């Protein structure tokens, strides 16, 4: 059986639930370890890579209670894995809350400005590019669904923004990779189309987690287990075809 290491932030949660369901149905065709760290205090950007090892930060014991992390081990021997899948949020919509930057349906941030924000916001770019440079054949970027809470107040501006953000983020990852890793192209796992809204850049609201958060708020930032199941199936197919 192929072995997969899923590295991520809270967005790894949907994959974990999807994997649990597929495993219980005996439909999982790979073994999996998780290294998922909550985004507070930097999330998995604090992981260290040394030679073949992916390790928790040295001070992780001090951080216990501050960072929520669910790792199966203190360190992972990367050579043991066939695939390293990264599941984490992009830089939107928060802390860049675009709703404060639009007027009469127009996005009030130039593409250059969005690009600067995206580039600087993506806290995981260093660790992801490091993993990619070291293990270009193993890395698969899954990402996270663009939060569909925005769909609720959907306007073309938001789609335009997300589209440009994603394209730019993708461009920056490629750019970063080509500069540091001699033009190798990372592999992206795209969610199946039925999960996506018409724009193909947002996830349909019904596939979001939506659990109540209090104050009449619901979680529209994280995907549901249904989403997780369908994405893990795509990951399974990808692994099987390798």
């Amino acid at each position, binding site marked *: 059986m192929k072995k997969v290491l899923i590295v991520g932030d809270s967005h790894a949660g*949907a994959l974990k639930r999807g994997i649990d369901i597929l495993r219980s149905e005996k439909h999982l065709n790979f073994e999996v370890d998780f290294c998922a760290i909550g*985004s507070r205090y930097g999330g998995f950007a604090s992981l260290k890579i040394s030679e073949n090892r992916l390790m928790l930060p040295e001070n992780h014991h001090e951080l216990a209670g501050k960072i929520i992390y669910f790792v199966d081990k203190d360190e992972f021997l990367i050579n043991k894995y066939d695939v390293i899948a990264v599941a984490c949020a992009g830089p939107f919509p928060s802390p860049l*809350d675009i709703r404060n930057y639009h007027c009469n349906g127009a996005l009030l941030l130039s593409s250059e400005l969005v690009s600067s924000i995206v580039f600087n916001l993506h806290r995981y770019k260093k660790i992801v590019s490091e993993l990619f440079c070291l293990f270009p054949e193993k890395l698969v970027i899954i990402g996270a669904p663009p939060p569909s809470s925005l769909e609720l107040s959907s306007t073309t501006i938001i789609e335009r923004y997300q589209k440009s953000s994603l394209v730019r983020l993708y461009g920056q990852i490629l750019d970063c990779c080509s500069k540091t890793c001699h033009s190798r192209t990372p592999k992206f796992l795209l969610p199946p189309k039925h999960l996506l809204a018409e724009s193909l850049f947002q996830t349909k609201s019904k596939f979001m987690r939506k659990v109540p958060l209090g104050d009449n708020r619901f*979680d529209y930032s994280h995907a549901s287990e249904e989403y997780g199941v369908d994405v893990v199936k795509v990951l399974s197919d990808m692994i099987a075809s390798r």
Partner: protein
Amino acid sequence: MGKNPYSDLPKSAFWKTGVSQENPYAIEGIYKKKFDIPPDAKIATAGSCFAQHISRHLKKNGYNVLDVEPPPPGLPENLHQKFGFSMYSARYGNIYTVRQLLQLAQEVACEWTPQNYIWEKNGKFYDALRPAVEPEGLDSTEEVAEHRQYHLSRVKKLFESLDLFIFTLGLTEMWVHKESGTVYPTAPGTLVGEFDDTLYEFVNAQFSSIKKDFNRFQKVLKKIRGGKSFKCLLTVSPVPLTATASGKHVLLSTIYSKSTLRSVAGQLSTPQAHIDYFPSYEIVTNPRMHSSAFSDNLRSVRDETVETVMKHFFEEHPAVLQREIVSSPLLHSSEKTKEDIQCEEALSEAFGK
């Protein structure tokens, strides 16, 4: 010696004791405030580049400097200026001339509309009235117009809410669209656009027109505010001209420009109780400094000099201590925490711990 009109005057009245023998870093009596600035006064800043220093130091010293177009969260601080954020109270870039300021207010008040203000360079489009705030330009003319409309709505908010308007007068020289009179902060073709002498002309503003423009600006501002009064603090930028288009030597043009602006500031502030003048220009160009106030290019004002200038300001308007630090209005820390909790909760639930 018999009594004469000068015999009882303080040492600040004499060149020898007020300048030659005076410490240029602590000039006694050079600035006496006309009015107090209450700690909660809402301050708006604008003007030529020297105004940025004033704005920064006021913020640092706890004053309530408004920022109606704050940088988006996530934009690193070292890029704020590149995109025209955090420099002044709105994202209008440098307002070098009083005519430019007047036109901005008139535009906000819907009394006037700029013409020919979208310039193109290499397929990108720029707001010629603030070309530096988007250094790479925007993708379409429509986008420039939309951004401008939003900007104007924010400036309106600023004008409505300010208590004190600090303006640094920078230049008399300007480039104007012949047909409409639209004034640009930069010459066409320098940063963006293309110079065409059939479209644009050079104007070197005269004392009377600058004074008139500022008084008109005050009227428009008052109208925007529904008649609510406000206070003004004027300064003159000590930064010399980079270049002149007047046909005269740049030194002559600089002295003309600064002298005119200084006179206007004096003529505006002396008779009007709500306008104060702060002598940053004099502190920087004091001959006692032997030009050491400037960097090696004899143009940029050294940081230490700005400190000295502001020290004189804060002697009259002491720093506001223990001001509550207000977080970005666009993303409060409590919202951030909620978001973190939401993420952690999603993770905990999935991993069943």
